[in-house]
Each structure stands twice: as structure tokens, then as C-alpha cells.
């Protein structure tokens, strides 16, 4: 079921914290505690180092590729309190540096491309920033949610544009509100909705008993249902489902043997990859009866 295609020796000098393939699967970005971001060109089982980006002065926690219609853009966030947006035009350079957080920036996520070039960032200082590229002025505009989660925000994910409001006609969903989900050190998951110039807390989901490490809003391909996966220091993964994006129902997917660090949906939104502190990766799918089944387990 799972076949390794490429093994990439990144040459990082310290722990790797994130890796992401671009839209076409041709470029791989990695980041590490050695303060660097690396970009590799991936071609038929081989890879070449395209760039070694140095600009952070602390461990780099996450990297995120923007949609290719905005060019080759990569965002990175770091313990050094900064977010850097890198751009390739011939060679890779720093396009923009965001320094609006007062503590480690733990997670970043690009908004669905339909909304424009928008990056959401969250930090140990408890706040969330939404930075938007204004096409007309060429500036980045910042909106902030202060005190989003007490004592820190660990993870952030956008609601897909297609399912942004399930009650609206999909053809006219330009008016649909933007939503993001965040997971924090207060053990809570919160859903935020853009309302005019503000981001307001729409929902708080309580289930976890320790830090929420990762949240992931499932891509939705026409399903009349929204899904969010969350994982926590409490070793549990919870699937939250909603028919209206307002009331959410939790299902505990599983309780694992170790802390769960990441959850990731396949692009079709029907398989969830779960990765834990014990190096175990498992794949889960919802059966017709609504039960979640482990369809594959990889332990090295």
C-alpha cells in the first residue's frame, strides 16, 4: 500500500521539523533546528539541492508553499519570532519578513488560493496573525487575533474555500465567510470566522486534555460535511464533523501509545495520516458505518 519512491538525504545538521512538496510535487522544502530552510528539485527518483536559505536565527518549525498562480513562494516560521516569505525569481530571495510576534512562531498556513495571497501565522505569544498581500499597493496588511489561545498557539489550518459555507450555493460562494481553525496550549481548538474587518471566535471545541499539537481541516470535494482532525499531547486523535460549520461533533479516532505530533489529510480528504512521537505513521479511513479504520501502519 505504501511504497517508498524517494529517500532524500537533506544534509540538515540538526532535527528536521517539517517537509512539504509544492503543488506539482517537483520541489521539496525542508526546515530544521539548524536554522536553515532547504529546497530540493525532485525528478524521477533523484533530487538536487536548489537552495539553502539562511535568514532565520533560530530553529525553523514549518514551511508552506503558496499556490503556484502566485509564483514560486515559500513561507517559513521560526523560534526566532519571525515569518519569512521567500520568492524564486532566478534565485531564491527574501520577499517579506513579518516580525509582529513576540515569541516563537509555531505554525503557518496559506489561505485557499481563491481568497488571494493570505498567510495565517500562530505563535507561542498566544496570538494569530493573518497577513494579506494587497495587489494594488504591493504591501502586506496585517490583522491580528490577540490572545487567541492562552499560553500559546501550536497549529493553524484553513477551511477550504469550496465548502466554506455548506448552505450556500457553491457557485456563488464568493461571499462565503473565511474560517480558520487553531489548536493551542490551553487544550482547546478554536474556530475563527472573518466578519468584516475582524476575526471573531465562532466556536471552541473541548475534548483534549493536554496541548493540541496539530489541527487539519479536511479538503472537501463536494461532500455536504466539514471535517477537522486534531491531535494532542494526550495521545488522542479526534475527528470533528459538522453539517453547517457551526455545530461540531467529536469522534475519538484512536488513543495512541505516544504523543501524536501531526495529522494530515490526503488531498481527496478521505485518508488521514497520523504521526506520533514513537515514529509510527498510520493511515486511517472512515468506513461506511462511520467507524474509523486503520488501513495501514508504517513503523521503521
Amino acid at each position, binding site marked *: 500500500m505504501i511504497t517508498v519512491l524517494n529517500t532524500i538525504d537533506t544534509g540538515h545538521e540538526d532535527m528536521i521539523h517539517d517537509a512539504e512538496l509544492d503543488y506539482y510535487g517537483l520541489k521539496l522544502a525542508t526546515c530544521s533546528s*539548524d536554522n536553515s530552510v532547504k529546497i530540493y528539485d525532485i525528478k524521477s527518483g533523484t533530487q538536487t539541492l536548489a537552495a539553502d536559505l539562511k535568514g532565520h536565527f533560530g530553529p525553523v518549525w514549518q514551511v508552506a508553499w503558496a499556490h503556484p498562480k502566485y509564483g514560486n513562494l515559500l513561507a517559513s516560521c521560526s523560534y526566532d519570532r519571525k515569518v519569512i516569505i521567500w520568492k524564486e525569481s532566478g534565485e531564491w530571495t527574501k520577499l517579506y519578513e513579518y516580525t509582529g510576534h513576540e515569541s516563537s512562531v509555531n505554525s503557518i498556513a496559506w489561505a485557499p488560493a481563491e481568497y488571494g495571497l493570505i498567510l495565517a501565522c500562530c505563535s507561542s505569544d498566544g496570538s494569530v496573525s493573518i497577513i494579506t498581500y494587497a495587489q494594488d499597493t504591493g504591501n502586506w496588511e496585517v490583522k491580528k487575533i490577540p490572545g487567541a489561545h492562552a499560553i500559546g498557539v501550536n497549529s493553524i489550518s484553513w477551511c477550504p474555500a469550496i465548502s466554506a459555507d455548506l448552505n450556500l450555493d457553491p457557485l456563488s460562494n464568493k461571499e462565503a465567510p473565511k474560517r480558520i481553525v487553531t489548536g493551542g496550549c490551553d487544550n482547546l481548538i478554536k474556530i475563527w470566522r472573518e466578519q468584516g474587518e475582524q476575526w471573531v471566535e465562532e466556536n471552541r471545541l473541548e475534548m483534549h486534555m493536554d496541548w493540541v499539537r496539530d489541527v487539519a481541516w479536511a479538503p472537501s470535494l463536494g461532500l455536504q460535511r466539514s471535517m477537522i482532525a486534531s491531535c494532542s499531547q494526550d495521545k488522542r486523535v479526534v475527528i470533528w464533523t459538522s453539517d453547517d460549520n457551526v455545530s461540531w461533533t467529536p469522534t475519538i479516532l484512536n488513543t495512541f501509545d505516544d504523543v501524536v505530533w501531526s495529522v494530515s489529510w490526503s488531498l481527496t480528504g478521505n485518508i488521514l495520516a497520523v504521526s506520533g512521537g514513537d515514529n509510527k505513521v498510520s493511515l486511517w479511513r472512515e468506513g461506511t458505518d462511520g467507524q474509523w479504520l486503520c488501513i495501514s501502519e508504517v513503523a521503521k
Partner: protein
Amino acid sequence: MRIKELKRTVNVCWSPAEHYPITLAAGSAAQQVDASFSSSSHLELYSLNLEDPGVDLELKSSLQTQHKFQKLVWSGAGVIVGGCDGGLLQFYSADKLLNNASDCLLGSSTKHNGHVSALDINPYQKNLLASGASDSEIYIWDLNNTSQPMAPGTRNQPYDHVQGLAWNQQVQHILGSTFATRCVVWDLRKNEPIMKLSDSQSRTRWRALAWHPSVATQLCIASEDDQVPVIQLWDLRLAASPLATLEGHNKGVMAVSWCRQDPDMLLSGGKDGRVLCWNPNNTKPGGEILSEISEQQQWVFEVSWCPRDPNLLSAASFDQHVAVHCLLGGARPDVSPAATSSIVESFGGAASFSQLPAVARAPAPAAAHHQPPTPPAWLKRPSAAKFAFGGKLLTFEKCPQEAGPQKLVYISQVVSEPEIV
């Protein structure tokens, strides 16, 4: 960053790691007056109340008690133990306290002499308590049956007050104890002391101690002497002299706490009112200060990491102040307002002595941000699995320490529905 505070002079302790939600127990501190000069004493439980952006903790339950407390500990076995004056130990049921039941007091004992100021719960056997008081008395209690405590060996001579006790974090039958002039390590299996540490080079006066969370033979001992306000790192395998001396406090060090989730972080609080976070494993001369957590007006007599959430720590000081800090985060500047002492107010706010003799202060280090220069271990994501276009899955994983950092990223193909492909 200071996130919560409590305006009382109390001894505090965190609920154990397995207890949810996180709760703070506070017992009126012995030998301290409060604003009203009331001699009443309370044992109170507070929830962190993180929902509320304000700085107040939420009172969950309060119990009036007969005696004030020298020291509090909360065992994973559900018992809160208070050490009091006159050799008294009080055992309370944590659950009954939380439910505001009337019969919270499970039992008490006056087996000790003098005030019981040293207590510690064994990290492996939650029902094992060590207590220390005057005349070198140390007892080991079974919280399930507190009638027959045992001694870890013959009392150490010359008789002296037991300042601190700490169970080893790796070997469950090893107990460390501090007296003003020496640190004695006991082996409960042999029922005798196996090691005595004393620094003949300097005139330290030991108070608190903390074992290394993962190296069984190492411990830190703090000196409360104002002339020698140091913390020393010792290894029992090289017991002739300390491995490292951490110098940073301007006056005696009253308390230390070693982070269980990241051995590179040790907290200390001192008579200079400062709370510092150290990397005790950095043996460079003088030690490495990672972060100055706070500065109080008065002695900080207790500091402690929250066992469940390593981002939180508590610091109690004699100016009627307990603060809960968060290690990371800098949204709110940590400027504690010059709290007008309510003790002075009860004297009619006489201007002549409105100024308490503030503690001597060194020029503040130019640390603009309190965030440690390197992230704590619990922030570092060791592994992940992420989907990409076309059913590709990216994975990387944690490697064993000896293998060095992980460098490999795997790109795999996931075929979940072969019939469709």
C-alpha cells in the same frame, strides 16, 4: 511572562502530572503575617482559569485549617500533605477538597520535632512520602498507612535541621537530603547513607536540592548563604568537588526545580527576588542563564515547574505574592506593579515606613526578551507525515540520539484503493 497571580503569602504546589485539569494548592505560609494579622489559616485549591484574560486564579475550594504550612506536596495517590510547625504532618484528600467535603483531613501525625519544612513524593511510588524536620529527622511514609513511618537510616550527626529532601528521578530507592553544611544521599535498600557531599572550598549553606531528571548520579544543590549565593551541580561519581557552579543570584538561593521534560532547564529563586532559568548541563564557568523569568520585591522562597505543562511555572515570594509564569510568550510585559504592601496599610499606611527595605539589586541584564535563546525540548516536533498531490506521503522521523540528527525525508506513494488506480 506572568500570566496569573495570587496575592497571598502561601506555600503552593501543583497538582501531579496525571491530574486533570491543572490545579494549584495553596496553604497559608507558617511564620508569616498577613495584612489583617489574622492567625487563621486556609488550604485552598485554585484552577488556572486560562479562559479568563485577567490575572486572577479561580478559587475552587477553601478549607479552614488549624495550622499554617511550611511545605505542601500533592501526591499522585490523591493526597495533599502539609508540613506544619511543631512536628505536625497533615494528610488531606485531594478529591474531597475539590468537592468541598467536610471530612477532607485523612489523618495527621506529630512524629516529628520542630517544623516540617522538607517533603517529597517518590516519582515511582506515589504513595511514598519523605519528610524532614529538626534534629536530622527523616521519615519515609506510606500514604496508605501513615501509622508506621520508617527512618532511612540512623540520624545524621551533628543533628541539624533538614532543609530539603528529593527522591532520585531514576532510581526509586535513592533519597537526597540537605542540611546547612552537607548533603546526604540515602539508599533505602541498605538503610544507610551512601554519600555525603560537602564543599570544603566555599562557605555554602545548603538549602534546596534537585536531582537530574535523566542522569541518575547528578544533582543540583542551592546555597542560601548571601555571601555564596550559588547553585552547584554535583556528580556522585566525582564527589570531591562540584562539576559546575552556577553564579547569578546576588543573594542566597532558596529554591530550585529541574524540568522533567527538558533536563537543560533548571529554575531557581532567591533572596534577591529573582527567578532564573538555567541550563545546568552547560559547565562553562558561572553557568548559563537562559532566561530571567521575573524579579520580585522580596525573597522568592519557592519555585516549581508545573508537572503537567512544562511551559508553566510558579514562584512564591514573601510580599504576599504567588505568580504563575509561562516560559514562552511575551505578549504582556512582565512589569509587576510596585505592589503597595497591604501590611503597611493595616498600620494606617504610615508614610515613615512605607518603604520596605527592598532587596539589593544588580543592574538588570539587557535581556529584551525573556524567551530562552534555544527552544525547550517539548517544542521540537520530532516527526511528521504529510500528504501531497497524487497520493504521495512525506515522512521524517526521530532518530536515536547516538545516530545523530535525522537527515532523511521519505517520499512514498500511497495506494489505498487499487481497484480505482
